[in-house]
């Protein structure tokens, strides 16, 4: 029997100990009218060897195209040690560290994770992870509305330059709690949120302003001006940041005169493989004074009976298992293993390593854009500085171009017409540090051939 250790002898002795003739008797409290028959529509059991054959065939069927798509998930190199360590059974098969004394490994890793995320974002405190970037923002919005006692409106300004899936997830998650999301337009020339566009909201009751850096188009926002505007208008500033970009870009804790109040984002670039979109990890950091409004697990350093340093889950009175309907969030299981991987990833790279990764992504994307815009009819859409992604206008519809590239084993970017029909025939491209010069030359060559037809 797969994964069940009982012998026939065990079974008989255990039944005798219980005092029942067979296992079936143990289910005699379930009304017989409800019992299902055999699950005949399920496939027959197959062995590990057979399922390995099946999965390998399916994996190779999907192939390994060269990826120039970013759009919220980035193809970075992950040091070999990261998953060799994170896959250790002691991390991989433990659960939420409810028994702190028997979970010091996970707890200390999470304390280190909190320390590293606070350092990267320039914020005072961090939690131990949320599901992903989009849900982290939804939680940040809920948190800001709770925390901003000066605001009664529940209105939150969300730039259209923010990742479209984030905007949808936030709407789905906060929409039933009297929170109104108001979309801010982006500047058609720069691709950024023009701080002047905020004048329309001057003097209104706004709970929070969401500030992505870089934004979905890869464009850098005027984060200092936006943060100061938020504070001048009694709104909280919520930063949505790429943690790799923070190696180069000035961190939310130093935005404007006072810094952002909450910083959140997608932790995938820190050691999580692309893996079809998950598991990734959301992160959220904030000012110390907002810590009791922060959702999710938080690890604190404390002492044991002998005065020795140890780690434990803390501020649990915010959480659902204590506060139930009055909790800051319903979150329980989060993304602990991904936070473990991110911690090891950051420890291996250090600040300098992360900076080199960020710089190489920036340089590769610039180089790719130069190559592609050398082709007739291909041009950058926005004029403002970017980090490691860029929007390009094509002379013909994007979906056909991308389909032809994909047929040749190359994912040439994301078609923006679905989410931004106003931008016309445009694609969003990204070249991480893993993309090589030959791969970029090949992209140029193939695109040229397609455009000539």
């Amino acid at each position, binding site marked *: 029997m797969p994964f069940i250790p009982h012998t026939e002898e065990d079974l008989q002795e255990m039944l005798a100990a219980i005092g029942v003739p067979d296992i079936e008797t*143990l289910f005699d409290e379930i009304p017989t009218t409800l019992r299902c028959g055999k699950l005949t529509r399920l496939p027959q059991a197959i062995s590990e060897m057979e399922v390995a054959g099946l999965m390998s065939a399916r994996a190779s069927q999907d192939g390994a195209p060269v*990826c120039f798509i970013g759009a919220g998930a980035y193809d970075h190199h992950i040091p070999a040690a990261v998953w060799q360590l994170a896959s250790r059974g002691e991390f991989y098969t433990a*659960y939420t560290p409810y028994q702190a004394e028997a979970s010091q490994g996970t707890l200390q890793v999470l304390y280190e994770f909190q320390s590293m995320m606070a350092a990267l974002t320039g914020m005072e405190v961090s939690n131990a992870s949320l599901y992903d970037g989009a849900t982290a923002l939804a939680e940040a919005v809920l948190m800001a509305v709770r925390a901003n006692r000066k605001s009664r409106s529940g209105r939150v300004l969300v730039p259209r330059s923010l990742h479209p899936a984030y905007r949808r997830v936030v709407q789905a998650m906060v929409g039933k709690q009297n929170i109104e999301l108001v979309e801010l337009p982006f500047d058609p020339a720069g691709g950024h949120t023009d701080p002047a566009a905020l004048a329309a909201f001057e003097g209104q009751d706004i709970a929070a302003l969401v500030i992505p850096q870089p934004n979905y188009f890869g464009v850098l926002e005027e984060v200092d001006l936006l943060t100061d505007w938020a504070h001048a208008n009694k709104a909280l500033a919520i930063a949505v940041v790429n943690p790799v970009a923070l190696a180069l870009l000035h961190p939310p804790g130093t935005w404007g005169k006072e810094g952002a109040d909450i910083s959140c984002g997608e932790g995938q670039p820190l050691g999580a493989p692309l893996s079809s979109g998950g598991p990734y990890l959301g992160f959220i950091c904030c000012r110390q004074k907002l810590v009791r409004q922060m959702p999710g697990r938080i690890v604190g350093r404390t002492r044991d009976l002998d005065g020795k340093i140890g780690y434990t889950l803390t501020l649990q009175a915010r959480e659902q298992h204590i506060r139930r309907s009055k909790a800051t969030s319903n979150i329980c299981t989060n993304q602990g293993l991904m936070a473990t991987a991110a911690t090891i990833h950051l420890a*291996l790279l250090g600040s300098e390593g992360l900076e080199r990764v960020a710089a190489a992504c920036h340089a590769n994307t610039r180089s790719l854009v130069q190559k592609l815009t050398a082709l007739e009819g291909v041009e950058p859409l926005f004029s403002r500085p970017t980090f490691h992604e860029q929007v390009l206008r094509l002379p013909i519809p994007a979906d056909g171009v991308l389909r032809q590239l994909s047929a040749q084993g190359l994912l040439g970017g994301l078609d923006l017409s679905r989410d931004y029909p106003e931008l016309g025939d445009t694609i969003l491209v990204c070249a991480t540090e893993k993309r090589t010069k030959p791969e970029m030359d090949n992209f140029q060559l193939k695109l040229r051939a397609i455009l000539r037809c």
Partner: protein
Amino acid sequence: MLIYQHSRSGRRATAQAPLQTADLSTIPERFRRQQRAALPEVSEMQAVRHYTKLSQQNFSIDTQFYPLGSCTMKYNPRGCNSLAMLPEFLARHPEAPADHSQGFMACLYELQEILKEVTGMQAVSLSPAAGAQGEFAGVAMIRAYHDARGDTARNEILVPDAAHGTNPASAVMCGYRVREIPSGADGDVDIEALRQLVGPQTAGIMLTNPSTLGVFDRNIEAIATLMHEAGGLLYYDGANLNAILGKVRPGDMGFDVIHVNLHKTFATPHGGGGPGAGPVGVSERLQPYLPVPMVARKDEHYHWLTEENCPESIGRLSTFAGNAGVLLRAYVYARMLGGEGMERVAEYATLNANYMLKRLTDAGFDAAYPERRATHEFILTLQRQAKELGVNTMDFAKRLLDYGFHAPTTYFPLQVPECLLIEPTETESREELDGFIDALCRIRQEAEEHPEQVTGAPYNLPVKRLDDVRAARELDLVWRPDNN
């Protein structure tokens, strides 16, 4: 020792990063970071040693019996891990076109079909990232259903007092008020109390069956009828699905919507607190509201169902398609078990729990519901020991750690005083169960003879009992150079 304490300025482990730093002149100075983040500077070997040693300070399924009630800490098969981590699966970008995704999508589609069959529901969406997000999705669908019918006066969700805290918290996130239903003396929902609470204001009820009291609610059909007659819907919290896999299906019990914790019933790893996966299944009338994305099949070709095809969907709950890697692990597990294997899961999980319950009550421990069968888990109450010996449940739990067993769930459900919620799972051998039972008996003997030996536990772990009050009062949540 923290990783920071191995750090020395100028030490490099940058073999993993590009060799050269690149030209950054196109990023204007005002956007640039002025000071490097305080990250550790360690060698690769230092990092490997540090995290290897930390891992050794954990209890885990791979190293210890971990009978944490309502968490289903069963063995996580290694094959599921290695096959979900095939290089092509890891490298697949979430926005890769369907043509480059047919193999991956086939796995998801078949997992949807498998979950439909084991739960008895009409349709499944795999995207919720964990049980609590599945609950949110489920209650949001209940709300969408009532709203679509113009039935907007329903503003309450009923939740039993024994429910997981996520239930009421999820209902509140969907804009509902929560009313608590008491459990009766036999552990079943108090149906008379329920009758008093149900009315035109009731949107639905959230139930776990078997409940967290370790018993199967025998009145489930009556509850379903009562709710449906009042126009409310039934939500099934799948936390305890392991107990009934292939025996009775939530759809057949009358539930309209469920979530399944794949990290429990489908053996995906718990990872020290996630990632999990909480797919949702629904009856026909809730199908239009399922969260996106989902996988559909037409003419042997798989395609995504998104906001465009599902206009009434409650929307998207993660940036992409949820915890895809967890879904692949669950799929591999389901294929290795097949239908027959699923039934065996429920059978042996139930056998193990009833065996432990019988032996422990024979040994003089008090069951919370002595007249009831155990399901896949059961509750002991140590109220008598706490009163007579001055040794409480937490003391027993900490002493168990010394004996090399992870403690069961303690002090939950809230209404059973001094309780231990014990879930052995089907993957534990009889010898392991016997060892745990012997340890509990020995601890009780220690409590009788030398209570301080138990109240001072644990002794054999990396730290002794930790000061939680200090942790909350003198908050120390991040390391800084000045906070060593």
